[in-house]
């Protein structure tokens, strides 16, 4: 059924066994993002060295889509340069806005392609983007405060 395109096995796996959940003691930037329409919340820490993201940890409450998506993002974007992370984020955002017309490039997005089905459910796109927008905000903060260099 249509629902299975939303709730891929990979997503439910990440939801039940999230990666990088639990906030690091130290960080270069910390952000707290909420989805005001449903109350989902995510706190996200990032650290970076020499322009490369060295750690992404997070904690939060929310639906399977928001929690799996931040788990996937935290795994995918770590050890990338800010530039690489930004281009991955852009590709993921385009996938979310594709209304089901794109499958996503697994070479770039890896597990995040499993979220492609979300783009057919307009109400859930914000869920999938919550962690990524938190990451984007944290990346801006850490680079503007020069703590990523």
């Amino acid at each position, binding site marked *: 059924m249509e*629902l299975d395109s939303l709730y891929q096995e990979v997503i439910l796996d990440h939801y039940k066994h999230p990666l990088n959940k639990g906030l690091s003691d130290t960080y270069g930037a910390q952000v707290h993002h909420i989805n005001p329409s449903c109350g989902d919340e995510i706190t996200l820490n990032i650290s970076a060295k020499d322009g490369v993201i060295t750690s992404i940890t997070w904690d939060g409450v929310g639906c*399977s889509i928001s929690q799996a998506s931040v788990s996937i993002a935290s795994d995918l974007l770590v050890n990338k340069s800010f530039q690489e992370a930004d281009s991955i984020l852009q590709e993921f955002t385009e996938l979310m806005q594709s209304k089901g017309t794109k499958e996503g490039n697994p070479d770039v997005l890896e597990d995040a392609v499993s979220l492609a089905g979300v783009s057919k459910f307009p109400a859930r796109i914000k869920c999938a983007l919550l962690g990524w927008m938190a990451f984007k905000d944290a990346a801006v903060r850490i680079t503007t405060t020069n703590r990523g260099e």
Partner: protein
Amino acid sequence: MSFNVADIRKDFPIFERTIRDGKKLVYLDSGATSQKPLSVIEAESNFYKFNNAAVHRGAHQLAEEATDAYEGARSKVANFLGATVDEIVFTKNATESLNLIAYAMGNAQPGSRFEVTSKDHIVVTEMEHHANLIPWQQLAARTGASLSWFEVTADGRLDLSKIDSVITENTKVVALTHQSNVLGTINPLAAIVKRAHAVGAVVVLDACQSVPHMPIDVTKLGVDFLTFSGHKAVGPTGVGVLWSSVLAELPPFLFGGSMIETVTMTSATWAPAPRRFEAGVPNMAQAVGLGAAIDYLSAIGMDAIFKHEVDLTGYLIDGLLAIPELSIVGPSNTDARGGSVSFTVGQIHPHDLGQYLDSQGVAVRTGHHCAWPLTRKLGVPATTRASLYLYNDESDCDALFTAIMGAQKYFA
């Protein structure tokens, strides 16, 4: 007349469509907005087709007909609530009605009973919809008044045990919901009204979840203001009602055409209520549609609708409680409670549950239901809410039960 849901459903064109590849529409989200009978849809469109003109202006037949239709709708609302026509103000929705009261109080002259200063005090409750919380927060912020609230007990009732210390000698307004949109709790008003009036405060009642579902007589409630939205009462969107017995003393909120008595280049005076509160060309077609909605509900009878919903709420609660790991958030019996039933199901997030239910044709609301402080207080990040109306029956509840159990398997 026996209550015949099958016949009622025939009046609502939307039930002719299907959901998600041919599934029957099981609409359990009337707490957010109700569906509309054909008579309401036609009343609104017929106004545009046959009578459209700006009310209270124009020296022509259409203007007369439009004014008659619009003022006729006001009479219908007044009769429905046991009020008089000059006590009924049409607004955009209940949110605007509540903001109107809060802003008008903020505009009150020094010495007026409505004046709110830094010495004054505003009371709300923990179970308010954001629409009956934030306007008062903001009035407090603008005036320096203090804000306090009645707490909610673990079983979803208002804690009135400290009523004399919550409502103080300085309290100017007590704003509360008649029926919680999350918990379904119907709040007792007598003690609150008595205490509020004893200290000279006015009582503002958010009746969004009660007026559509039960007989209301404002002369018996004792409150000073009552608000509701047309769209939750089988009426159109874009029209709400503010009822008050003290409008004559209240200054205006929005200024412009229609609401004046005289105007010079430097000053203006105000028309009497209700026109003082209806600046600009109003939502005429929507008000007329609301009139048709009230005709529709009245023909069935609010007593019959209320009884049907209480019976069905009992069936809904019993069926939900029989599902393993399901917890109801709010009263788990039908004493002083309406047909909004919120619940959680084990570890399944409400957003995921709602998505699964949708895949089965079952429409519910998930999230904090615009009552974030309440869900926080109850210790749940979000809930799923099924809300009933006159067009629901036991088969809708059964579809919900089956779908919830399906979700438990799906997300196991």
